[in-house]
């Protein structure tokens, strides 16, 4: 058997195509068995591995413009902020896929990784996971629900990758076909704003798009080499993403 080439899974999100419908958010929750919020949960205590932020251009009525920014774990590759801080190796960078994996059963719930993450992509289980009676019948059998007191985050639907690999192996293939592995969010996006694939694969659409002129990553200056790219034709979106503090515009966010 030949050595398998490592993948670097990543995304390119077309911000001009995102309508902010939220299909990705619920699809993610269904796929990953994320429970509905308890009554007292709010925007800062809920669990949304995938979260769509509505970002305004900072101008007031009637010049206001908005862009919807789907945010999830950006799968940082270099100096991954959350990996080095975890005291007990509950976060690992999977060499084969480039996915930053969170191992909830080993997590102590110290939340250090959450303070380390500049993208706020990590979520803590402030409550026990509770589904309304009977609704646990609808849980995805491939993903174990997490317990109270541990941190979790997007893992590019790692379960789907495993399933695709198992299927490929059963068919005697070493490598999986690109269409066999798509995370739930890109699968659910009605406008195909989320393009997912292997950045190492030069043929893939995602690697082609990632190198386009209007592609950018958030907080690139931190040097953490995230694998999620964004695209927009709107100059003001780039302007905000580049955090040009010299600009008088102050952005506000709803999300």
């Amino acid at each position: 058997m030949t050595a398998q080439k490592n993948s670097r899974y990543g995304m390119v999100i077309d911000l001009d195509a995102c309508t902010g419908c939220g299909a990705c958010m619920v699809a993610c929750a269904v796929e990953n068995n994320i429970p509905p919020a308890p009554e007292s949960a709010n925007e800062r205590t809920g669990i949304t591995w995938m979260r769509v932020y509505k970002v305004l251009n900072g101008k007031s009525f009637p010049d206001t413009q908005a862009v919807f920014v789907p945010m999830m774990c950006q799968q940082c590759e270099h100096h991954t902020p959350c990996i080095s801080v975890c005291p007990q190796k509950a976060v690992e960078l999977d060499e084969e896929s480039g996915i930053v994996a969170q191992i909830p059963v080993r997590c102590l719930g110290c939340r250090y990784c959450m303070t380390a993450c500049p993208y706020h992509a990590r979520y803590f289980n402030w409550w026990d996971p509770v589904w309304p009676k009977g609704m646990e019948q609808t849980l995805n059998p491939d993903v174990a629900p997490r317990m109270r007191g541990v941190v979790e985050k997007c893992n590019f639907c790692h379960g789907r990758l495993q399933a695709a690999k198992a299927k490929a192996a059963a068919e005697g293939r070493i490598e999986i076909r690109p269409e066999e592995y798509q995370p739930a969010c890109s699968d659910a996006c009605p406008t195909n704003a989320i393009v997912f694939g292997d950045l190492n694969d030069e043929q893939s659409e995602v690697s082609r798009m990632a190198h386009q002129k209007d592609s950018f990553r958030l907080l690139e200056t931190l040097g953490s080499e995230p694998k999620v790219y964004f695209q927009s034709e709107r100059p003001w979106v780039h302007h905000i993403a580049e955090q040009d503090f010299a600009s008088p515009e102050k952005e506000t966010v709803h999300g």
Partner: protein
Amino acid sequence: MDKISRRALLKFAGGSVVGFLFSPMPWKLLDDTAKWSQNWSWIPKPPQGAITIKYNTCTLCQAGCGVRVRCVGDRPVALTGVHDHPISFGAMCPAGIVGHHLPYHPARVTQPLKLTEHAGSVDQYPLQPDELMNDLAKVIGEAHSSGTSVVFVDGQPNRYVSQLYRQLIDSLPNGIYAVSPHGDAVSAALQTMSERPSGMLGYDLEHARTIINFRAPLMDGWGTPGRIGQIIKQQKKVGVSERLKIIHVETRYSRAAAMSDEWIPVNPGADVFFALGLAHVIVREKLYASAVRKTADFDDAGISFVKFVREFSPDVVAPVTGISADKITRTTRELARHTPAVVVGGTMSDEEAMVLAQLNLLLGSVGKTGGVVARRSLPEIMTDRRERSAAKTIAQIPDGSVHLLIVDESAAAAIPWQILEKKLASEKSVVVSIASHLVGQTKCANYVVPSPTYLESLRDVHSPEGSVFASLSVSSPLIKVPAGVIEPASFLQKLAAAAGVPASPSISSPEDLLKKHVDALYRSRRGHVFVYANKETVDISKIESSEQLWKLLVDGGVWIDTSAEPAQRLLFFGHRKENYARMKTFIEERKQSAGKRTGGFPLALMPFRACGDVGEISPLMTKLYQESGLRAMSNRAMINPGTGAMFNLIDGAPAIVSTQKGKMKVDVRFDESVMPSVLFVSAGPDKACFNHSTAAKEENILLLCECDTDSLHCATPANIQKA
């Protein structure tokens, strides 16, 4: 025996501790903590089983998206879109993605309930089906003697099963079948303007170059989510100069406005004047399509559209709409230049819709590629003339005339309660809600008849809003209906029986009805079928029998028409002479009300809600409403920061909104996009819609609003203060 000394006891204790530490026990216990903390008994274990894929069609709204259902054993665990689906293009809306949770919703009703309300909470008393029928039969008896009516309001009247309901209701003494406002008002207006009766109209957005949209939630639930997604995707592939331009006209910076190329923020309630302004400029600058001049009432001596719009010059409408005259003129020229241009509208009054329809006519987009196209009707099997005549809308039911009001779930969700309440004859009038979940306005009913929910019953879905071609698909039940749940048709049958009406419907069940229609469709030899499972399109001529067609549809398939209806001749005001006068009156009324402020209520309150914001939704939708700020729950108020500061409000803090009708506590969010002096309050789902306590009566901003059937776009004078 020696007395045990303290020393000995201490030694024993110390020895025990040391001994314990050196035994394997503590390590075992420590090790076990890892297991315990991973497998607490209260953490649900996902049920395992054989994984199968089934195909279905979503019936949560009219869109009818194709659904790929991943099942474990018999239970659906994930719903995703069907790729290459000709209508939904593999996409689903968030509510559809989690539709399979609805059978397990905590507010699910599985037996008939009698509701009484006191002190803001709703008490539920379970009833036996017989008790329910007896109670209702008594009411019908009394209604009959007093001459008032029994009204059934259908929220989704364009389904075949509605015909069954209608047949049953009509058989009752004084029974009236009514429909809630639904679908596309502009399309309905165009129908009234046409020479001959026609089917609904669709918009050929795919080929349009300009869309001017009056507050239709284009990217937020209009049509099918996939269709709009497809258009957006296609647009990115063409050069900037050739792209479709979407102009959005709405007071609020809605999601559709955000996704449009241009947002025109008109003053509350002034959309119609903006439209009239556009019409004025088109006429004045002769930008209309050449054929328009031939239209009878374009510039007739009696009824003249030219005269009608003459007074609405940009300078006149500018102060009313808040849009500069220059902007109005420029927008009009752009529309006329970038044709085909099409005018689309959201839910609105018939009169407003007519103005937009007239704009379409002016722009020459009716019956044109990239314009408004009539779709062919599906074959009907009901031959009774009465049944084919237009059903009454809720507005046509006289106030104070209804003794027994039966509302189905979607009607209860769509129509503000105070509108329904006005129709009731007396305090003793009874409201029955046919509902699967005890949420929203269903809580206002006196009785609840438990009905099947999504994936539990056989339903048909017709052409989505705005579609060019007619389509039909069928959703088959995947989840067993809980005992106690009553199929609405069977409830109505029982009701008729209990009221002493001899049972004689020609069709016995929804399945029977649907099969008969499918048979008629098969015999019409029109269209083709897209099969979800293998993504193949089968022409109807290749289908061997109507049974095979039925099977294709039930197993996951959609029938689509292959051609539209030929273009018709339209009149600006239709053939009904009173239309012109009606329009004049309406405009005068609007002129009076636009910009009116009542003393003490300095703000214009506008409720808003998005598609899927009403009725029952999966508890998992908390991700959008509660765990993120993407969508607004029923208590969310949005205000311009400047206005907020004027009213001493704090971003994120609670406040009290008051109108002449009452008060409500809201949660204030400052939003730069909000027009100053306007207050938007969400009419979205209450917390109870997710999973929380169902006892409390739900507060909704609509109850504070002055509303007609189009409650969502009437600005109500309001005030707000810190809570």
